[in-house]
Structures are given as structure tokens and as C-alpha cells.
């Protein structure tokens, strides 16, 4: 619904983060979003914009403390058996109802598969706009509007998007783009409890069972300080052995380009890039990776980038802090040997 300027100024205040829980823990992206939500709320001229985290699930009681430590002023908690599995329809009905009730000015969520399924449902239900997969969020000083930056066309273009006359302004944000704030264990906040209405539980969709991949999942890539990535240059599934060996010697995780996944050399959970994960390790070691833009968007904010490539002109070599020109089958085992000592 289009709103007038006064309707917007009078009613819409807070910055909301839709929290996500994995295996009983708050998802890393939620903490990152609280970090940027704090910045956005503090930049609002009104001065009374709060950071609010909406946390939903069937075993979420008690998790609010961490959210307060990480800069939430208020937590709205919805704890219900019906939220055990991710039923988009129940989640969306609750989120839409609560947004209408509390009228936040901004709502952000991780661009996870859940966030990307839930947010577009909610946006249409409450008749507002949604910007996908943002890599930048800021407040326009003049208008006070949310400036949402996102890559499109496979990362070949960066667009800035506004939502002027509809509220809330909504975006999904990639993991690894923003940094969480230092936890402050002395912080507390206000806890509000909300529930799920009986009619919201009646949907034509039911999740029967769920399976978790456990260890060999993307999360370990997100948590790794060092990532060693193999590209098409490793030539075969066996070629990944020296990549794994190097990763092991530095206690890092193994990443991969889409080319290697499409060839069936390694599983999708290792993919870094536009259609895989966005990672931000302390050290990123790219072996036999050319550095196409779709890969770069997933790793270019790493603190320190090392590239090993036969071709000195490969795009990754320009981006790297250290570029080793050479055959990865010679260089990588040498590094592993030195690192293991």
C-alpha cells in the first residue's frame, strides 16, 4: 500500500532483524545483521529507532540474552511447537501480523534459503518492496531512506535500490557481508512474547521430516579462519587431495569453484561465489582458480588473498595480496610440507 509522507513519519520507527536459529544456536548471519541494524538505527535522525530482533522457533527460550549482548534493544519471541520445522506459510503469517502490529521502518533478514523463501511472501502480504541479496545497507542522510546495494546480472552490475513510499523497507542480506559487534555481556533489553494463532497453523503444506548434513556443511566454511579453494586447475577429483592436505595442515576448510562442482569433483556445499557461499576468512588461498566475477563476489572481502596460478594474467592474480605464478601440483605440496613442520 502506498503511504503518504506523514503516515510514514508518524508511524514507522524501528529496525527489525528476523532472527534465524540453526541446531539450537543463533545463526551467525543474525548476529551480523544485528551489527548493521545498530548502525542504521543510530543513524536515524528521529533518535528513537530501536533495534528489534524477532526470534521464532520451538526451542528458542533463553536465546534472547545473546541478542541483547549483540545490540538488540528488544526481542520479540515466538515460541511454538508449530514452528519446529520451517513451514514458510506459518512463519510468514506470523511475521506479517507482527509487522502490521508494531510497524517497523526497516526489516532485514539473512539471504539464506529460509530468508529468501519467507521475506518475499511477507513483502507481498503486507504490500511493500523487498531488495534481494544486499551487500550494502546505509541510510541516505538527506531523505533518511534505506539505501540498499546489491549485485545483479551475475555480479556484473551493482545496483542501489530504494523503497520510498512503502513501509517497512525490506531487504535480505548475504552472510559474511557485515560484521557482528563485540558482545557486551552487561547489556539487557526488553523481552516481548507473542504467539501463533490457531488459524495461522492451518496450512495446506506440512513438513514431514528434516535431515541435517552435520559436519561437512557450509557452516564450517563460514567459521574457518583459512580457506583453501580448488578450481578447475586441480583437474580431477584426485587433484582435490592436495587441496585437502593443505587445508588440513593449516586447520582450514576446503572451498571450490562452480566449475569443479559442475564437473562432479566435489560437493555443492563447498561452493564459494554468487550461487554458493559468501566467505570472509582471514586467509583465502585460491589454487587453480581463474577468478571470474561470480567467484570473486563470494570471497573478495577476505582479509588476505593468496592465488596460485600458471597464468600470471588470470583475474584472481590482480585481486590477490600474494600471487604465485606456478604449477599448483608443485607449489601446493611444498607449502603443505613447510606448514606441517
Amino acid at each position, binding site marked *: 500500500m502506498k503511504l503518504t509522507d506523514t503516515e510514514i513519519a508518524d508511524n514507522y520507527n524501528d529496525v527489525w532483524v528476523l532472527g534465524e536459529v540453526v*541446531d539450537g544456536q543463533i545463526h551467525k548471519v543474525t548476529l551480523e545483521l544485528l551489527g548493521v541494524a545498530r548502525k542504521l538505527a543510530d543513524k536515524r535522525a528521529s533518535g528513537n529507532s530501536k533495534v528489534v530482533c524477532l526470534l521464532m522457533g520451538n526451542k528458542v527460550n533463553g536465546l534472547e540474552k545473546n541478542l541483547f549482548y549483540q545490540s538488540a534493544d528488544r526481542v520479540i519471541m515466538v515460541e511454538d511447537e508449530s514452528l519446529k*520445522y*520451517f513451514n514458510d*506459510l506459518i512463519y510468514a503469517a506470523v511475521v506479517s501480523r507482527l509487522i502490521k502490529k508494531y510497524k517497523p521502518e526497516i526489516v532485514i533478514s539473512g539471504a539464506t*534459503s529460509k530468508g*529468501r*523463501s519467507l*521475506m*518475499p*511472501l511477507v513483502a*507481498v*502480504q503486507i*504490500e511493500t*518492496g*523487498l531488495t534481494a541479496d544486499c551487500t550494502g545497507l546505509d541510510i541516505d542522510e538527506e531523505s533518511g531512506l534505506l539505501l540498499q546495494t546489491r*549485485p*545483479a*546480472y*551475475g555480479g*556484473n*552490475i*551493482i*545496483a*542501489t*535500490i*530504494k*523503497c*520510498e513510499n*512503502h513501509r517497512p523497507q525490506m531487504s535480505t542480506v548475504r552472510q559474511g557481508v557485515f560484521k557482528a559487534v563485540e558482545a557486551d555481556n552487561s547489556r539487557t533489553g526488553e523481552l516481548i512474547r507473542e504467539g501463533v494463532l490457531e488459524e495461522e497453523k492451518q496450512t*495446506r*503444506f*506440512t*513438513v*514431514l521430516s528434516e*535431515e*541435517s*548434513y552435520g559436519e561437512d*556443511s*557450509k*557452516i564450517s566454511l563460514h567459521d574457518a*579462519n583459512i580457506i583453501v579453494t580448488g578450481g578447475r586447475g586441480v583437474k580431477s577429483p584426485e587433484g582435490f587431495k592436495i587441496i585437502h592436505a593443505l587445508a588440513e595442515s593449516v586447520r582450514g576448510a576446503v572451498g571450490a569453484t562452480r566449475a569443479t562442482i559442475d564437473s562432479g569433483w566435489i560437493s555443492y556445499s563447498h561452493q564459494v561465489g554468487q550461487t554458493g557461499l559468501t566467505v570472509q576468512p*582471514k*586467509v583465502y588461498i585460491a589454487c587453480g582458480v581463474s577468478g571470474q566475477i561470480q567467484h570473486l*563476489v563470494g570471497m*573478495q572481502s577476505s582479509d*588476505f588473498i593468496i592465488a596460485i596460478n600458471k597464468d600470471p594474467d588470470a583475474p584472481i*592474480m590482480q*585481486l*590477490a*595480496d*600474494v*600471487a*604465485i*605464478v*606456478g*604449477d599448483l601440483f608443485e*607449489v601446493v605440496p*611444498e607449502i603443505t*610440507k613447510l*606448514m606441517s613442520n
Partner: protein
Amino acid sequence: MKIVVCVKQVPATTEVSIDPETKRLIREGVSIEMNPFDTYALEQGILLREKHGGEVIVLSMGPARAELTIRESIACGADRGVLLNGRPLGGSDTYATSYILSQGIKKIGDVDLVICGKQAVDGDTAQVGPGMAAHLGWPQVTYVSRFVESGPLELKLERMHENGSDISLVKLPAVLTVLKDVNIPRIPTLKGRLNSRKVDITIWDEKDLETDPEKIGLGGSPTRVVSTRKPDARDKHTIVLNGSASNSARELVQILKSRIEL
């Protein structure tokens, strides 16, 4: 089963250029194709029709030349196609696009299932499928990786997410977005190609669709692209090591050790 498959016509390459004067994307003279993710949606529609009978209708919103993409879908095995085309529809964001497509689905009538691709390679939002589900008030199942069981009234599906997968049951009518894990798309047959040239494509504009003028096109879109630019090349000093493998490895390990200690 009456199945609608949504296909979008996209540029054949995501290499884009920006007009230095107007700062707009240059779209002229770029060759086009069917959004690659939609070929899996189309194949799934055809597979379901082969099993349950019924028809596969391809639905696309876009310029007149999007008719080519619809004909290509028919060559692969779709029964017929509908193109939503009209000047006031242009410039729609995902809210407006999903509204317009949902009006098309209502006008087709008695639809059991809508299948979309995971995302379009140009806009890249993955928001149109869920948007349609919301406009229609139907359940959605996103990131479908496997059809476990299919019946005329409900489907049992596997969905993928970052840390695993789940199995769910959905009652029709519903909207699905599918991953490329679901099938291997077939290629057009000669007979299909010949047939695709003869079939009439239905074309509807905003009046046929009875769309609310407040909800379509640029004016009806809550989001607006205010600027576009090329990504920044990180401007930095690179240390190049191009000696023997053992020398390079030794130098790197020195640098690396100092980084890890930090």
C-alpha cells in the same frame, strides 16, 4: 493436471554495459535466451503431464520477442503459451511482476500447479515465485530438489537448504520453485520445432488481465533502482612470486605465518 510453467526471457550473457550518459543498462543488440533455470521447471511440467495427463501452459511476461522463448518451450513439449505484454507492464519490480503473472494464472483458470525456476540470471532475486504464491494465496514450496511422489491432488517433495534438506507434503494448487537437481531437461525434437511454429500464442495486455493500475509497472513497484555501476576492482598492491616452486612456497609460508600469528 493443469500446469503453468513460468519462463523468463533473459540476455544470453550476463556481461552488461552501462550507458555512460544515462547510466542505464544497455539492452539493445544483446542476444537472448530462456532463463537457464526455467528449463528445469519446464521439464518438470512435461514429466508431470506425461504421468498424470493434462496440459502444460507456458507463461511469460516480457517484450513481444519473448514469444520466441515461448515457442522454444513448445518445441520442447509444452502444449501452449501465454505472453503478457503491454507498455504499462514494463519496469515492474518483483512485487508488480508477481502480481501481473498471478493475474495471468487466474485468467488461465483452474490451474493446479505453477512451476518456476530457482531464479532469473539477470534480476537474480528469486522473489517472483514466492510473490506469486502470496498474491494467489496458495502454498509455496521453494528450492525443490526432488519429486518424491506425485498425485493429482498433492505432492511429496524434497527441499534443499544450506544445512540439509526436508521432506514435505503440499496440497494443490501450489507454486513451486525448482533446483536443477530435479531432472535433466530434454532438447527440442524436429516434430516439436515444426509444431511450435504453427501454434498460436495467446497475448494478453493489462486490460485483458484486469490489473489494478496502481500495482503494475514502474509506478506500481515499491522498489526502485536509483543507480547502477560496475563493480569496483580492488585497487591494491600485489606481491608476485614467480621463482621456483620451493622458493615461492618458502616465501609464502613466511608471509602466511606472520598473518596467522596476527
